[in-house]
């Protein structure tokens, strides 16, 4: 056990080892941008395995043991009347497993009935209330706004919403006034999609900047590992990787 503890302390729990592993796996995943290669596959599968393993251990320790195993044990050792509610819901949850049976799958419907009833009873009033709050916020006296900018803002919102909705009105052909309104609606939608695209790009770049910060902060490890990975990729694609030979069937 001491040997195992020493090995773990000097590798997995060692700060330098953690930094090098962090840089190595970042570069392995980024190598995909050059071309699909075994390093990327190794990194991807390692990530999958570790995240699943970590998730399952956390799930067992934090959810299953305190909320399932321990209450069952306590109910068995010292049964109390309130344990009946726990047993009822435990059995109800177990009916989900009947989905694996072809003949008895209908048993799970009782549990689903509770789930859908809860969702309908809770979600619908809350969502409708939120919609009414948004809707009532739109009903403001237009010309009593503090500045011209505020007034023009509401004109843009109302006009933009109306024209965008007109684009989706298909009961009449898009000709004449309706056609022109629909064209403006397309423009409004394009501006909206462009803004969403810009925000998405900004978000994704920000996530990459986090990785770039790790690479830049630990530049010694980054330089060494970039060189090693480049050599590996060169050797792999030069001597080991063979392009798939497409036969006649696959070509057409």
């Amino acid at each position, binding site marked *: 056990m001491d040997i195992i503890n020493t090995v773990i302390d000097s590798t997995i729990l060692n700060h330098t080892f953690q930094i090098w592993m962090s840089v190595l796996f970042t570069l392995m995943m980024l190598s995909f941008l050059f071309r699909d290669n075994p390093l990327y596959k190794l990194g991807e599968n390692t990530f999958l395995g570790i995240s699943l393993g970590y998730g399952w251990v956390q799930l067992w320790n934090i959810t299953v043991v305190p909320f399932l195993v321990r209450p069952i044990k306590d109910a068995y050792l010292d049964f109390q009347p309130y344990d009946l509610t726990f047993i009822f819901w435990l059995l109800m949850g177990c009916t989900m497993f009947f989905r694996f049976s072809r003949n008895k799958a209908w048993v799970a419907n009782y549990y689903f009935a509770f789930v859908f009833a809860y969702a309908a009873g809770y979600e619908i009033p809350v969502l409708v209330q939120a919609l009414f*709050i948004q809707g009532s*916020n739109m009903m403001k006296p237009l010309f009593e706004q503090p500045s011209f900018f505020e007034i023009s803002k509401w004109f843009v919102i109302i006009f933009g919403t109306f024209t965008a909705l007109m684009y989706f009105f298909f009961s009449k052909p898009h000709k004449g006034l309706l056609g022109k309104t629909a064209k403006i609606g397309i423009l409004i939608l394009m501006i909206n999609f462009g803004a969403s695209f810009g925000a998405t790009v*900004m*978000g994704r770049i*920000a996530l990459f*900047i986090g990785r770039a*910060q790790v690479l830049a902060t630990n530049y010694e490890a980054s330089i060494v590992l970039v060189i090693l990975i480049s050599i590996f990729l060169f050797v792999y694609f030069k001597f080991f990787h063979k392009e798939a030979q497409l036969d006649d069937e696959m070509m057409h």
Partner: protein
Amino acid sequence: MEKLVKVLKKLDRRWIFLLIFLSCIIPFFITDLFDSDFSISKETMRVYSIIDGFNEGDAVFIDFAFDPTLQAELLPMVEQVVKHCFDKKVRVFIYYPYLTSIGLGQNLLSDILKEERYSRMENGVDFIHLGYIPIDVDMMVFSTYSDFKSTFGNEGKIFKGIKTMADIKYIMTFSGSDHSESYILLQRRFGYRLGAGVTAVIGPDFVPYLQTGQLDGLLFGLRGAAEYEKLRQKHGADKIHNQKANLGMASLSMSHLVMFLFIGLGNFIYFYERKHKSKT
């Protein structure tokens, strides 16, 4: 011009990847050249002024709803909010709605406690990890409005005076998904004060809630984190420990400029070809 257009059309996308990569990396090495200055948005200012207005002993509830995939944008925000709360001697309750966020949150707090300024903060007195419970946010809010302490099953001096969620002065939810909307939908019913820290991807979806007052303050992506850091530096926090997001702002600007360049080139090629096709 035709040769240039042909070359650009055939440009291997890996050159674009390389340019974006360099535009993100280089500003970290030449920080003086890329000293970015930016204004503070009123949404970030709102979060800052709310927390700054708290008294000693007030409580803030942090919903730590992201895993390591989103830590680049959201972790600096949480770090700054927690440090600001510690400076104001405000109690911090940290709840983890996802299993994968627990380790990240605990590592963050242990890193904060390593700083000399916050080394005296105690778990259970100044802050507490409420852990994870396998229920949805709505159930959690309903339950904490009956009994805050027994919902989470924790003990500590920190719970003194906190009987229900109504005793929490401000709830801050940090998330990269529509998870934060669960708090927003219940805000009008329970009347709590709610702020959010979100990624840039979903940020625009939360702006309508600012206007209705359902959301009182919003930190928007890496820029929001950088703005908060700048505000804290303005009011006395030292630069060394408080500029993770600021360091990334120059990279963000450079990478966006590179993207503008390529979008411009793409549009130029499109309109050039259209013009030449119509001529022929």
